[in-house]
């Protein structure tokens, strides 16, 4: 395909194509045939390019659909170790101030739609829980070492448990 001004095909070559004889007609027929083929090729390529673009846009929408949820999840996850430490601390030495701070933290999470999960007695489920050790005989949680958190169906962090 000509792709620069130099190679651009002349539309009409006076010396060769201004006559009316059979040779000229043949030449023009060949030229027309080639032009029709090229036209079809370009049309096809153009249609494919348009289609590719439309498909690309559609896929971008799919791929980015949960991007916001993922970014929120990662941001929340980065704060969770501090909350874990606070909860552990409360287990050992509770105070009114610390309880209030914990409540602030949990309220903020709740407003974002975050749910805490993981409790003793639940059936172990690797979709929700990460097993640290096996101490019991049944497939049930006997202690929760670190709570799990999720937003809707998206797991921010699995609960770390002993079964």
């Amino acid at each position, binding site marked *: *395909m000509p*792709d*620069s*001004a130099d190679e651009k095909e002349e539309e009409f070559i006076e010396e060769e194509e201004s006559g009316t004889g059979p040779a000229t007609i043949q030449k023009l027929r060949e030229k027309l045939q080639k032009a029709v083929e090229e036209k079809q090729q370009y049309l096809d*390529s153009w249609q494919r*390019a348009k289609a*590719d673009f439309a498909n*690309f846009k*559609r*896929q971008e929408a*799919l*791929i980015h659909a*949960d991007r916001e949820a*993922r970014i929120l*999840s990662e941001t929340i996850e980065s704060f969770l170790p501090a909350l874990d*430490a606070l909860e*552990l*601390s409360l287990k*050992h030495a509770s105070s009114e101030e610390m309880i209030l701070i914990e409540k602030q933290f949990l309220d903020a999470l709740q407003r974002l739609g975050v749910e805490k999960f993981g409790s003793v007695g639940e059936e*172990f489920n*690797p*979709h929700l*829980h*990460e*097993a*640290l*050790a*096996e101490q019991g005989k049944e*497939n049930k949680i006997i202690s929760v*070492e670190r709570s799990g958190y999720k937003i809707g169906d*998206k*797991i921010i962090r*699995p609960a*770390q448990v*002993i*079964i």
Partner: protein
Amino acid sequence: MAKILGIDLGTTNSAMAVMRGGEPQILENAEGARTTPSVVATSKTGERLVGLIARRQAVTNPKNTIYQIKRFIGHNFDEDFVQKDKAAVPYEMRKAANGGIEVEMGGAWYRPEEISAMILGKLKADAEKRLGEPITEAVITVPAYFNDSQRQATKDAGKIAGLEVKRIINEPTAAALAYGFNKKKDEKVVVFDFGGGTFDISVLEVTMGTEGEGSIEVRSTDGDAHLGGKDIDQKIIDFLATEFQKESGLDVRNDPLARQRLDEAAEKAKIELSTAVDTEVNIPFITSDSSGPRHLLIKMSRAKLEELSQEFVDRAMAITKRAMEASPFKVGDINEVILVGGQTRMPAMQAAVEKFFGKKANMSVNPDEVVAIGAAIQGGILGGEVKDVLLLDVIPLSLGIETMGGVANKVIERNTTIPTSRSQTYSTASDNQTSVEIHIVQGERAMAADNKSLGKFVLDGIPPAPRGLPQIEVSFDIDANGILSVKAKDKATNKEQSIRIEASSGLSDADIEKMRKDAEQNAGEDKKKMELVEARNLAEQTVYSAKKAVDDNKDKIPAELGTAITEKISNLEAKKGSDDSAGIKAATEELSKELSKVYEAVQKAGGTQTPPPNEPGSQSAPNDNPETK
């Protein structure tokens, strides 16, 4: 066109990528992660688990959780190293009828390729969900040292997973593809792959083929199947546990819960020390004793990490030396070095590689993803996506016009693919301005005078009107050959004028690079100039609006306010010619406040004057007014 999935089927982790819009892109799995652990399990409830979910229950279900199966694929049971590695894994293994290997999971026996197929199956399903289309073909990577049997077994794994494996390519070759080294001539490339559990070094030679694409051959390969980032993590854990024991007298190594937290903290610290020179490992309530809860708080420096990891870096460099000696090349012959594997992010590792080869390594492509990216590119080449009959150019420098204050207002940004068209609407800078000069400039500088002038033309016959009212649409059109046509049209009269410029593509690469560098170097100064121009333009507009408001509403404005605003107008008029942009802004702000009071007073007096649409604060870009002549 169906997409061919590029898959890096790793020992510890796997990744996948496809070509999208002509670019390779990593696809996230169903859990939203860019890599998937190469772990498969049958849970205690009989559920098949793959990836992160399988890893989560590994500790409590070791006999039915299969990991690092790649070590065994394509091997025979009786091989020495199989017997050795077998002892290190908790799951059962036996000799298959044909002398191969079978592993037990959930009461059934599977060949390694069937296990790998489960991993590939998950990647396939997740990719289909992400893209919303079926995936039936793939390119899968394998280590350069894989023999025919191992390669065939990997291909079989793909087939079992429902994938037609279009090609099996070497991991170092994929890495070279990711950097486009297949397009270079007679290059010698080293791929340094330090992953989670294995180290591989490969020396490649790229020879130019007939169609402009090189063929990549592996000239030597070496490695250590038991050397990886995990070894460094272990050293860090030992260090932390030892330090804690010194302080507290307690050994937390045997406490599974403490161990888990140490594991996570060690990896986190290692990652942080790639960018920070020190970090603090903080694990509250790591354990307890008779005196109560105990906390771990230990500082760790990058120097300490380097000391801990030195032996592993040294081992890798010794193997690298061996690989170079086994190749036909000398160290000085190597043109490019590529880093693969997350562990290569460690500065000490990068420094060691740089020192050995005497050149900086390539790591601009994410080292965890580079192999999958290369596999996707190979898939693109096979699928015909990358080879394009229609090659399009991009414009190397931005194109724009000069607007009020001498600013270069960009209409088409550099690196825009052509052919393309862009339009923007402008207006006049003065009342009753009947012509505008369109001055076309090329370059990245903020001020038009600092850019290259491409051409000028005038559009006249604009009906007299207050400034800011006429709508002049300026259109830029560049064809595939880089010929620029600029048209200016007055929307009210439809009168238009245009110019055709051929010189916009006439710059050499060196010229282009120089112009870009100039813009970078002068960015600070250009920013100040822009601020001054913007401040002056805003001042002009505010003075104009203020004068108009006063003139039109003499009878509605209280005397005091009238005096105050007149004073502020004079003040700003005096200031706006200066170079003090902060001073101009302040004076504009003061006048603006007085002007608001005027509008309030007018409204109270029952007037209908409201702030005009181009009042300061209510404008939106682009609203620059072409320079008047």
